[in-house]
């Protein structure tokens, strides 16, 4: 049975049972205002809920009974014993219907015409008891609350029954052949008797309402029990022969089960909070004449009931906003080149101990100009200030208190209404909300809610004499490093790095990060330290700690309010030994140590705007070779850094080679001025590709920096992307592909492989090679510069643009391409939207599209296909890229 119906039955049965005791007094005191109001409210609730659940028969009975109760309540009709029987009869009918719904999930056949007639007669004042004298009732009848609502409700119900497959009960009912009234009445009477016997509802007995406070207390006590258990376990561990071991083990199991059970009582799928949203959207779309799809993903994501209650209203509000203000009318959408039907995406998932809820629409986005005007009007900022603000900063003003009301009055279609309240509510439970909106393209709101109340398994580590807990969820692996062994921490300037399976792992020294100020790691030389390989989203990094203890189940307690600003901690807890310990927040650490793709706090507006403004930061390795001018390569494409013994270099056919990990690796000096002698060591940048490696010999490694690459001077020198200012110095950005190609070509030939040039790129039409035209869309100049040569070398004719908007301009200009390769994460317009645009355009709708991104989840890929991409590949994966291009081209046009 539908969860909602079960809940409704439970609730209604409870209210009915409560009424039972009161009803006894009704006969003695028929005009008890309180009781009458109570019955009125119950009927009103039943009526309302039934309309929503699609239970028309019950709704009608409740509705008519409500009308009558309304008259009693308002005092314009006196309750006589005859009316008491009528009230009781109505209640019995309701109970009977409920019983039937409970047993079969559907309403029973038959009609309540007789009862309804009686109720209507009373309501309209034409029954036997009121004849004469109560004519004024008719005048007032319209004012009773039920009378006014009735048409609306019927409309909605009919609409639901007609349109929504979600209301099968309603449809069924309409489809039923109506039996003759008399027959139905006989049947009803019989059923009525049955229902009286089964007055004790089965469902009501199966579930029990418990106040959240009780659960809260229970949870606290279980938490304490868990802590005590941990304490006992620790004692028992030290004393293996003790007789406590076995009973303790049993206790351990029982406590674990108990803990899980209590946790379960508090957890609810977020779908519960979403249940009403499809209806809201449907109503909205009818009301406003829009076509809106609501797509919900992750309904099963569970979260604490209390948290759920707190976010219910903000969520509803935001979804309504998306439908109301975000999505345009079909006509507007068509005009804007979008599909008629707008989509509101609702997504929930766990990430690093948080729950992320996303509300995204593909509507009109936030109207920047209007918000700007409003900001100036409301005196929130001066004109000059506004002029300097980024779009993101301006949009943030919708969260400003008071901004909303002003919006409403002037009916600006911004999303101002109540957003400040939404934000306050979310922040109240320690969450954050951020927003990204592109005018004309839609808006995305992300709500991040921490799991404030949860028992999590954590790894206890020590650094600088202090202990910390790290949620195990984020921990991938542990590595013990010793400077003498193969696993050692290497320094690039002052930045520690570690080679983890052919990859450089950026390291964060917890000691430095937390400013514990104990012995600096440099002096202790990283000997016998542990690296905790931590993953946040798609970003991995290592935390250097001194010691690793056990894992422990801990109860996350929020930190005191005055410590709320410490973003590196997600909470604190009490350990088995009774001491307090801080819980590290891997997400927070990732954020402060430079990973910019992490969601930012809403208050870090400026930061967001810079990262969203297309200025993506790239980790760069700086080195020198030949002259002193620093040179830079993106760290992400370097596989390893080595120090090479120059004496171990061998020469073969004019090619420098070195035996490396059991194979021969070709070496090239970065340029001719790099002196490769026969003595000493030189740093080597190792690039591995398709199981083959190339080493580039350089003079020295300077540093690793995270910078926005802004190529200021482009040179037409081979092997050089251009020059940029990195940490205050003019730095040459190296185009690695140039170097790799110079060796790879030879490399393939040596092994009997054909270089790509002949293998795939050009089609030979009648012996005449025709270069295929490829459009490359990527916001990062670096990737454009890196991929262009790759594709050109492979024989394609490449046009690269920095944004989908530029690409679409080409489309308007009438340029033709054989293939489009597009990045996904781009400012202004992302790859998905771009694909949708391309697919809906006349000129380009059949051009195959390949999505290229650095991180992709299955949902992303799915989304990509839906948007119109034909293929999905990871960045850096050159072989797959070329292979994919080749195969996609071979297939011809877009396969829809």
């Amino acid at each position, binding site marked *: 049975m539908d969860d909602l119906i079960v809940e409704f039955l439970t609730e209604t049965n409870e209210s009915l049972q409560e009424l039972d005791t009161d009803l006894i007094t009704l006969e003695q005191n028929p005009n008890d205002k309180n009781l009458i109001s109570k019955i009125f409210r119950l009927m009103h609730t039943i009526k309302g809920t039934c309309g929503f659940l699609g239970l028309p028969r019950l709704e009608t009975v409740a509705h008519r009974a409500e009308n009558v109760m309304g008259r009693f309540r308002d005092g314009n009709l006196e309750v006589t014993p005859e009316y008491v029987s009528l009230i009781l009869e109505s209640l019995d009918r309701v109970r009977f219907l409920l019983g039937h719904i409970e047993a079969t999930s559907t309403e029973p056949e038959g009609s309540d015409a007789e009862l309804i007639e009686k109720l209507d007669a009373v309501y309209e004042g034409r029954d036997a008891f009121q004849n004469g004298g109560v004519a004024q009732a008719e005048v007032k009848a319209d004012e009773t609350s039920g009378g006014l609502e009735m048409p609306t409700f019927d409309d909605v119900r009919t609409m639901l029954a007609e349109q929504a497959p979600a209301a099968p009960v309603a449809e069924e009912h309409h489809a039923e052949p109506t039996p003759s009234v008399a027959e139905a009445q006989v049947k009803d009477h019989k059923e009525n008797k049955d229902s009286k016997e089964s007055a004790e509802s089965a469902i009501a007995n199966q579930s029990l309402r418990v106040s959240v406070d009780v659960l809260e207390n229970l949870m606290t006590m279980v938490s304490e029990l868990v802590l005590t258990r941990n304490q006992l376990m620790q004692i028992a561990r030290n004393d293996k022969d003790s007789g406590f071991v076995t009973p303790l083990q049993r206790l351990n199991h029982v406590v674990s089960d108990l803990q899980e059970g209590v946790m379960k009582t508090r957890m609810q799928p977020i779908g519960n909070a979403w249940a009403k949203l499809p209806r809201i959207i449907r109503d909205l779309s009818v009301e406003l004449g829009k076509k809106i799809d609501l797509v919900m993903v992750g309904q099963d994501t569970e979260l604490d009931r209390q948290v759920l209650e707190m976010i219910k209203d903000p969520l509803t509000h935001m979804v309504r906003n998306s439908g109301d203000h975000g999505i345009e009318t079909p006509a507007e959408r068509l005009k804007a080149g979008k599909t008629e039907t707008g989509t509101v995406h609702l997504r929930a998932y766990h990430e690093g101990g948080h729950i992320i809820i996303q509300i995204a629409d593909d509507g009109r986005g936030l109207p920047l100009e209007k918000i700007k005007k409003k900001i100036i009007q409301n005196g929130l900022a001066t004109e000059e200030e506004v002029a300097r603000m980024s779009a993101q900063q301006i949009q943030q003003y919708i969260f400003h208190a008071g901004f909303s009301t002003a919006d409403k009055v002037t009916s600006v279609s911004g999303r101002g209404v109540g957003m400040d309240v939404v934000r306050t509510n979310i922040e109240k439970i320690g969450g954050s909300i951020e927003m990204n909106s592109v005018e004309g393209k839609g808006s995305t709101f992300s709500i991040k809610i921490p799991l404030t109340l949860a028992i999590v398994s954590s790894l206890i580590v020590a650094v600088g004499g202090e202990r910390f807990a790290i949620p195990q969820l984020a921990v991938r692996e542990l590595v013990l490093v010793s400077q003498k062994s193969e696993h050692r921490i290497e320094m690039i300037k002052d930045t520690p790095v570690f080679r983890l399976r052919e990859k450089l792992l950026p390291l964060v020294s917890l000691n430095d990060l937390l400013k514990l100020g104990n012995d600096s790691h440099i002096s202790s030389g990283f000997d016998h330290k542990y690296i905790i390989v931590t993953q946040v989203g798609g970003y991995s990094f290592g935390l250097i700690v001194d010691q690793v203890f056990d894992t422990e189940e801990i109860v996350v307690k929020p930190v*005191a*309010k*005055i410590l709320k600003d410490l973003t590196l901690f997600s909470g604190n807890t009490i350990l088995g030994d009774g*001491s*307090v310990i*801080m819980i590290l927040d891997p997400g927070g650490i990732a954020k402060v140590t430079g990973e910019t793709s992490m969601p930012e706090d809403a208050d870090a507006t400026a930061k967001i705007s810079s990262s969203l403004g297309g200025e993506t930061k790239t980790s760069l390795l700086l080195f020198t070779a030949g002259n002193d001018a620093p040179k830079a390569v993106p760290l992400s494409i370097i596989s390893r850094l080595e120090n090479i013994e120059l004496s171990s270099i061998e020469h073969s056919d004019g090619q420098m080679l070195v035996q490396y990990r059991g194979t021969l690796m070709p070496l090239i000096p970065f340029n001719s001025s790099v002196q490769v002698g026969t003595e000493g060591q030189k740093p080597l940048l190792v690039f591995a590709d398709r199981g083959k490696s190339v080493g580039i010999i350089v003079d020295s490694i300077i540093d690793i920096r995270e910078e926005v690459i802004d190529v200021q001077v482009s040179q037409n020198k081979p092997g050089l992307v251009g020059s940029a200012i990195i940490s205050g110095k003019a730095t040459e950005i190296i185009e690695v592909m140039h170097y790799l190609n110079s060796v790879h070509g030879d490399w393939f030939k040596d092994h009997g492989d054909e270089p790509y040039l002949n293998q795939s790129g050009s089609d030979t039409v009648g012996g005449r090679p025709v270069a295929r035209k490829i459009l490359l869309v990527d916001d990062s100049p670096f990737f454009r510069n890196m991929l262009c040569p790759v594709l050109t070398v492979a024989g394609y004719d490449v046009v690269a643009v920095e944004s989908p908007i530029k690409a679409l301009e080409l489309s308007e200009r009438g340029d033709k391409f054989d293939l489009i390769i597009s990045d996904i994460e781009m400012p202004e317009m992302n790859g998905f939207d771009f694909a949708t645009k391309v697919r809906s355009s006349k000129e380009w709708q059949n051009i195959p599209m390949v999505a290229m991104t650095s991180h992709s989840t299955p949902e992303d890929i799915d989304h990509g296909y839906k948007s119109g991409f034909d293929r999905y590949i990871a960045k850096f994966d050159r072989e797959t890229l070329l292979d994919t291009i080749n195969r996609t081209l071979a297939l011809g046009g877009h396969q829809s």
Partner: protein
Amino acid sequence: MSTNQTATRQSDALHVISDTQKDFLTININGQMFGIPILQVQDVLGEIKVTRIPLSPPQISGSLNLRGRIVTAIDVRKCLGLPPLEETDKRMSVVVIHGDELYSLIIDKVGDVLTLQEKEFEQNPATLDVTWKSISLGVYRLDGEILVILDVPKLLLSLQHTH
């Protein structure tokens, strides 16, 4: 005391001191006597192990476990701009409740509970140190000593804004 007099009392003190008589727990910091309204006091602790909280404001010494509840410890000397105690010196703490959270105020010594008359209460002297003024509700003139009443909520709020 007549109602008239009550009305003329300093508005500053109204929200805390509404009775003619009030109980205070006295504490000693650096030789100065302070009072904390007794209703705010949850507990008095001797020396107790405190876990450091990295990156927290200097006035926060750390957190401790008080019968299963995590209590944030605050060094009142630092809040008042006083020199720290010697390592070897004994110290005590007074646990106060603020909102629904517990805070432990680390002080030198706890004294008696005093019941004080309203008429002995006075506003902060105008020339009082700004830091002190900001966290003091007012003073009581005692025999041979001045008792400074700590405004605990204000003290905690000031910490929230210092960093």
